[in-house]
């Protein structure tokens, strides 16, 4: 029994010494490589998909100021144009994936209710904005967002070059909704023109 106790004691002593070696090495690494560890941590955070960051907080609008903005790629509204039978989801941001799924909200523009330019874009597919050119002045456009419903009325339309960004101005003086799609509607390959609908806020 004494022999076994001695062996166990020796083993425990060795384990403690070994563990102290590990602690000493870790302490040296942390002390010497503090900056490098912080940098690696930061980079890892950037490249890790944070599932908790999925948009769960609803935006709120108060006195023309929106808080808790939607995150890129999240659906935050539905665009409805009754006269052309359009009802499409609106996503914040614009990339090919979003444009193939519905309406893209240009990140450089404002949100409905903020009192500035709102720019929506969509492909000229039959399922999305192919019928946009069939709209007439006076047609209603409704944006049902997760923080309120906004109604606009069409006041005009234009065909512009894709590079004519002044025709789709971003300003904060007046709330104006601009929706555009590629032109001509039945184009083959790359379209260099855009069909734009302009609408003012009604309520």
């Amino acid at each position, binding site marked *: 029994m004494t022999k076994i106790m001695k*062996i166990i004691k020796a083993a425990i002593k060795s384990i403690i010494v070994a563990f102290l070696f590990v602690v000493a*090495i870790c302490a040296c690494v942390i002390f010497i490589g503090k900056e490098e560890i912080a940098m690696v941590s930061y980079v890892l955070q950037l490249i890790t998909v944070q599932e908790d960051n999925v948009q769960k907080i609803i935006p709120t609008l108060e006195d023309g100021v929106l808080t808790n903005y939607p995150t890129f790629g999240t659906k935050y509204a539905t665009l409805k144009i009754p006269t052309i039978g359009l009802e499409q989801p609106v996503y914040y941001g614009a990339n090919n994936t979003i444009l193939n799924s519905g309406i893209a909200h240009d990140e450089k523009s404002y949100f409905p209710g903020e009192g500035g330019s709102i720019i929506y874009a969509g492909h000229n597919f039959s399922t999305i904005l192919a019928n946009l050119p069939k709209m007439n002045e006076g047609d209603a456009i409704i944006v049902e967002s997760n923080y309120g419903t906004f109604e606009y009325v069409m006041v005009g339309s234009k065909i512009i070059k894709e590079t004519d960004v002044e025709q789709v101005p971003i300003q904060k003086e007046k709330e104006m909704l601009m929706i555009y799609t590629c032109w001509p509607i039945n184009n083959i390959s790359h379209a260099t023109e855009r069909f734009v609908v302009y609408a003012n806020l009604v309520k």
Partner: protein
Amino acid sequence: MNFLKRVVSLISSFILVLSLGIMLANNLVKTKLLDKDYIEEKMKESEFHEQISREIQSSFDEYSLQSGLPEGTLDDLFTDSMIERDVSSILNCVYDGTQISLSDKAVREKLDEKINNYIESQNMLLTAEGKANIETFKEIIVEEYKNNINISSKGYVKLHEIVMKFKSVSDEIGLLPWMLVFVFGALIIWLNSNNLLRAMKHISTSILSFGMLLKISVMIIIKTVDLDNLILMTMSITNFVINIVKEVLLEFSDIGMFCMFCGLVGVIAAETLKGNLEEQVEKKEKEVKPYRRKLKR
């Protein structure tokens, strides 16, 4: 003197652990990161080329609807062998510093053929603007192909510089870790030459410590890094890198476990042998004692 020997033995044990660590790290860099054949093998295992194919086709499909071209026009613009050749070209750039050469010309030729066939079949009369739009579209598709494979030319050149740096550091380190292990192992044995079992205990403790270090490091990495939710540029690169990282972590974990086991066995064996020796010495003492009493008289 004995105390000094013990302190120096302890310090030598500690340096032995560090030497083992440097040896493992150098081996990891040499046999995995700096070995092009290993990387190619891992790419095959993680179906890297197939994933890139899917990513490229998926990005083409996003242009398909808006192009107004019939379904299938943007299919079969590239082959698996083209992807393999292009990926190999990038690996050669990273490891050997050669220029990247992609199969974009072949993609363009195939695309030209398909679009021209469609236009002819529809008897379309294109305006100059229409022709220019089609050329722009073709360039966009070819750029998509290039960008999906060659994510960043500058990045790969930078990666080549890093690989060369690692190579030179690894070459400089060379056999140094082995020498350190040998030297400090020999020092422990020399310092404890009158009690070799103590030397065995010190060396076993070093091995045990090294195993614990590996196991704890792997545990910390697994707990703090969410490997399954990492995104590195594209899914193909992400999956490939994560596969290698997981394999390395598993290997380290196995080595750690083995070292801990060997270390513990060494300590137990040393203590057991010490106990046996002490027993034998005690026995002999008991035998000799009566004769000593007689001599004293």
